[in-house]
């Protein structure tokens, strides 16, 4: 479980705690850019780890270092309010005695001239979808509204790092999608790194750059999202939900109207697209269950994509009736296909065989 020392890690922490029967023993190396996701079953210690990083958990001992600053080491301890991070806990902890805008000002006032504070409030309230709630007392918000206010407030404190504990679980899917996009924008455009706890694979796929899997208080070394999605054994996926995730560059060449051509080695994947060509990589998710394998190039269908694939191995899935085919694209990326045992027999699949993987592709974000 030892990570090799990671030189581009911004936030490094070794955390130990022992609470009743529960043992925490983490070694975290969180990079300076992008969104890291902490993933694990209920009770695995995710919230405890976040609190410890935020400087709120005296029961957790260990070493925490942020860039050059030592936040925790032995008896040395930088208190939470000096760490300039924002921590969002599982329940929106709004201040009852202030209205929504008072709550926002509480965070915004601190690091900005009051003018730019007001400007920020308007802007962030807009993106968090709470502009219409600014004068509302917090006791009169719905669960999801409160959660959005809390997120907005955390962003307004201008943190150097964001620690988010299931921030989106009370939101409807539209709001969740919008906030996922906001988080990604913050992570890339404003270079705000963050650590996000979530149970939702959907959120992991949408926002994660790295994934750290926690099991019963211990973590595995961090994986890139693609690695994590491709690892059948880390419990990230719901049973049968293994998927490949690719960040692919759009190619300038347009083969058809309304289709965007994404380059994957010498092959291409087409996704439905309208509007200008995106200037950053597009994230694709191709679930194992969405992939159909063909012995030879299939005839015309509405499924627009077909990649040559070399079967690497065939393993048992979590569902005893299913088999999982792990294959490699021509540029070496892994792709998965979930097929029935019946199909395996009919196709007479073996390792090393060349097949065609047919799938529909839709961008995640």
């Amino acid at each position, binding site marked *: 479980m030892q990570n090799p020392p990671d030189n581009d890690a911004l936030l490094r922490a070794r955390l130990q705690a022992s609470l009743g029967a529960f043992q925490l023993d983490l070694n975290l190396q969180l990079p300076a850019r992008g969104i890291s996701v902490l993933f694990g079953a209920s009770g695995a210690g995710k919230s405890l780890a976040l609190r410890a990083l*935020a400087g709120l958990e005296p029961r957790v001992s260990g070493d925490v270092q942020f860039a050059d600053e030592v936040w925790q080491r032995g008896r040395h301890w930088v*208190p*939470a*309010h000096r760490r*300039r991070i924002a921590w969002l806990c599982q329940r929106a902890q709004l201040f009852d*005695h202030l209205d929504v805008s008072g709550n926002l000002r*509480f965070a915004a006032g601190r690091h900005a001239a009051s003018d730019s504070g007001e400007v920020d409030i308007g802007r962030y309230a807009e993106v968090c979808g709470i502009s219409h709630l600014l004068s509302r*007392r917090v006791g009169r918000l719905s669960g999801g509204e409160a959660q959005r206010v809390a997120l907005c407030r*955390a962003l307004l*404190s201008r943190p150097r790092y964001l620690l988010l504990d299931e921030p989106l679980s009370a939101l409807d899917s539209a709001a969740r999608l919008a906030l996922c996009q906001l988080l990604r924008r913050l992570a890339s455009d404003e270079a705000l790194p963050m650590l996000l706890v979530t149970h939702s694979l959907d959120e992991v796929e949408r926002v994660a750059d790295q994934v750290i899997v926690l099991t019963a208080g211990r973590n595995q070394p961090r994986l890139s999202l693609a690695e994590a999605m491709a690892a059948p054994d880390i419990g990230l996926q719901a049973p049968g939900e293994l998927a490949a995730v690719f960040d692919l560059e759009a190619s300038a060449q347009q083969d058809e109207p309304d289709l965007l051509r994404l380059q994957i080695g010498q092959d291409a994947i087409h996704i439905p697209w309208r509007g200008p060509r995106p200037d950053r990589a597009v994230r694709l998710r191709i679930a194992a269950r969405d992939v159909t394998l063909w012995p030879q190039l299939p005839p015309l269908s509405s499924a627009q994509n077909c990649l040559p694939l070399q079967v690497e191995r065939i393993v048992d899935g979590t569902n005893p009736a299913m088999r999982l085919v792990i294959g490699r694209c021509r540029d070496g990326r892994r792709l998965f296909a979930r097929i029935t045992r019946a199909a395996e027999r009919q196709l007479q699949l073996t390792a090393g065989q060349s097949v065609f993987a047919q799938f529909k592709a839709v961008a995640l974000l």
Partner: protein
Amino acid sequence: MIGLSPAEWSALKLTLWLALSTTGLLLLLCIPLAGWLALGRSRVRAMVEVLVALPLVLPPTVLGFYLLLLLGPRGPVGQAAAALGLGPLVFSFKGLLIGSMLYSLPFAVQPLLDGFRSMRRELLDTAASLGAGPIERFFRVVLPLSRPAVLSAALLSFAHTLGEFGVVLMIGGNIAGETRVMSIAIYDAVEAFDFAEAHRLSAWLLGLAMVCLLAIQTLRRRQQARDGGTDQ
């Protein structure tokens, strides 16, 4: 029957003034003190908490007796005060104020402690993670959310001072306009068989009390309605 004589007026004014200044000073003193006791991390807190609670269990006569010894010109505090040119502390309003504050200290601290302690920990953690240091957390989160506790503390110490009798009897000396508060005046009237005066003074106190209490209740109710919207 209902009007008050000038002497009685001065007793009433004195009483209110004493109660108000005691309450005001106590709140100024006890809010930070209780904050530290409830939320601080120092080891000596437990000790200090016991010390602060001590006047609770000391009868006013004990307090008065020792104050008399301490504050008198031969007592250490009295000598210090004299050295500072503060004038005599016994048989004076200043002395009463000191006595009342000591006497009512735990009645101000206790509700504040209860209030501050009932603060949800995660709320304070959130405030800290938003960059608010301990002092700011206390004044911008804990204190505003503890308004009922502050109100209770003020009410209890105001009331306790109004009702103070033993300490005043011991260190006040019943000086008209200086230390003859209502409780003493009523006591005097009763002992002198002047029941009419006793009734009159009591009626005034009662009336004042009702007004104060009703005002506080209205305040509270309005507060609640504004905050929760769900009171009925």
